[in-house]
């Protein structure tokens, strides 16, 4: 497999404070990389670097062998824990948004046949993430899990080279979270995605990832904790024994029990 993302001795510093140091990584195409680590270990900073919200102060990041532009663009898709859908657009319009922006630079709106084509494609995407019967609903009326499904569909419409997930399931109920795991694994395989996911949940990290990166500081100076930055201290490549989405009877029973107990969400 070819290397999609390359980090060459990447540092991120804010003045005196060093957040990330000596990050040397290669991320293969079609891999699912989970990023774990304690709070303040630079997981989110790492994601922001890939997203282009920030530029490394030293070293460089390559996407497809070319230097990464330090500005967000359609080659990178993102799903945040919250607020990553537009509250003023219906589900369908949310998913069409990307297409409308790329094909109509001035009005950012499509008309006629182009609009119908975009709507059809968006509808297919919504059906795929399980929102086929919520096309014309505003996000405020969707539950947390459904909003995340919408955010994923929206990101996938732009066909990103890398999909970045920043604790995407952190705010969801356990039962829903498992539904979402199944969904994201299915999409990952279906669309041949490369995924980078920051999470606090170790089980989730190992359950979904083909590779787990643990970020932490290698050294700590107790008198000047800010002088050493974090880096990927563990880099585990996982080989699965069983296909990840094979339904384990025990966990399925647990999941259904949870659903009945919490009784909140769309069981779809």
């Amino acid at each position: 497999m070819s290397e999609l993302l390359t980090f060459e001795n990447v540092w991120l510093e804010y003045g005196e404070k060093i957040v990330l140091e000596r990050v040397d990584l290669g991320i293969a195409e079609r891999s699912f990389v989970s990023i774990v680590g304690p709070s303040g270990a630079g997981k989110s900073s790492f994601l922001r670097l890939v997203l282009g919200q920030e530029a490394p102060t030293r070293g460089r990041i390559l996407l497809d062998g070319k230097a990464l532009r330090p500005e967000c663009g359609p080659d990178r898709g993102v799903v945040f824990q919250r607020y990553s859908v537009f509250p003023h657009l219906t589900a369908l319009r949310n998913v069409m948004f990307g297409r409308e922006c790329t094909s109509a630079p001035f009005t950012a709106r499509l008309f006629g046949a182009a609009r119908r084509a975009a709507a059809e494609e968006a509808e297919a995407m919504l059906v795929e993430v399980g929102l086929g019967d919520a096309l014309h609903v505003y996000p405020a009326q969707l539950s947390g899990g459904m909003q995340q499904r919408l955010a994923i569909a929206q990101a996938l419409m732009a066909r990103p080279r890398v999909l970045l997930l920043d604790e995407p399931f952190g705010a969801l109920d356990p039962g829903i979270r498992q539904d979402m795991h199944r969904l994201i694994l299915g999409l990952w395989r279906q669309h041949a995605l490369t995924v980078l996911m920051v999470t606090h949940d170790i089980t989730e990290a190992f359950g979904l990832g083909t590779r787990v990166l643990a970020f932490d500081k290698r050294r700590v100076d107790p008198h000047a904790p800010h002088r050493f930055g974090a880096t990927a201290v563990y880099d585990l490549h996982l080989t699965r024994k069983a296909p990840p989405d094979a339904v384990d009877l025990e966990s399925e029973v647990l999941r259904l029990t949870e659903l009945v107990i919490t009784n909140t969400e769309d069981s779809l």
Partner: protein
Amino acid sequence: MRWVNVRPSRRNSVLLGALPLLLVVVAYLFASAARHAANPSDKILPTPAAMATAMHSLLVDADPLSGRLIFWADTLASLERLGLGLGICTLSALLVGMVLGILPAARASFGALVTTVAVIPPIALLPVLFIVFGLGEAAKVALIVIGVTPFMIRDLADHVAALPQEQLIKAQTLGASSWQLALRVALPQALPRLIAGLRLSLGPAWVYLISAEAIASDIGLGYRIFLVRRYLSMDIIIPYVAWISLLAILMDVALAQLSRRAFVWAHQTSR
């Protein structure tokens, strides 16, 4: 049951809301009757009948000098000034507020200016406006604009700047340019706030309008009130004030309805 948990039904709320208003009216009627019992030619608390007679001539009899129906001419003149002033306010607040809210560089350059203008008491500028624009319509409209616009700009700019960063990042990863971000993400979310800001500005706008009319004018609701004050004509002042209040309430309700109809998403409670 605790008092904090007593919630009146919808119908009872309307009744409860009407009750104090009714009480005020009844109290006035009693006070007025009492004063007239003591002094039949009392002018301070006129009876409803006296108000009706006084207003009748303003409502239906043309003024012998100008040939106008005074009440309606006053209303029209005031509403014209108010509408023009608030229209200019709203448009400029939308334009400037959006730019300040979206572009950090514009905020850094002009934020301090807007804040400075906002703290100047507008009435203190009224003499300046009269000197610059003369005593005509322009000065009155300008007072409303100067009084209300800085508040609306700041309100809108703050609201746009407070849109979740995640939304803006997300839009950029979907390929949106700065212009598309403004047009498709910020503008639609700014509009309900603009209407809310306009509703809050209605009160101050009326204050500025009436102040300007009181000082230099020959027509308008505020002008009329201050004119008839010389003759102690409470029988005209009270109906005029009631009419101004009614107009203000109607505008507020109309704007609230407009926002509800046009921006359904902004008025849905989240699940």
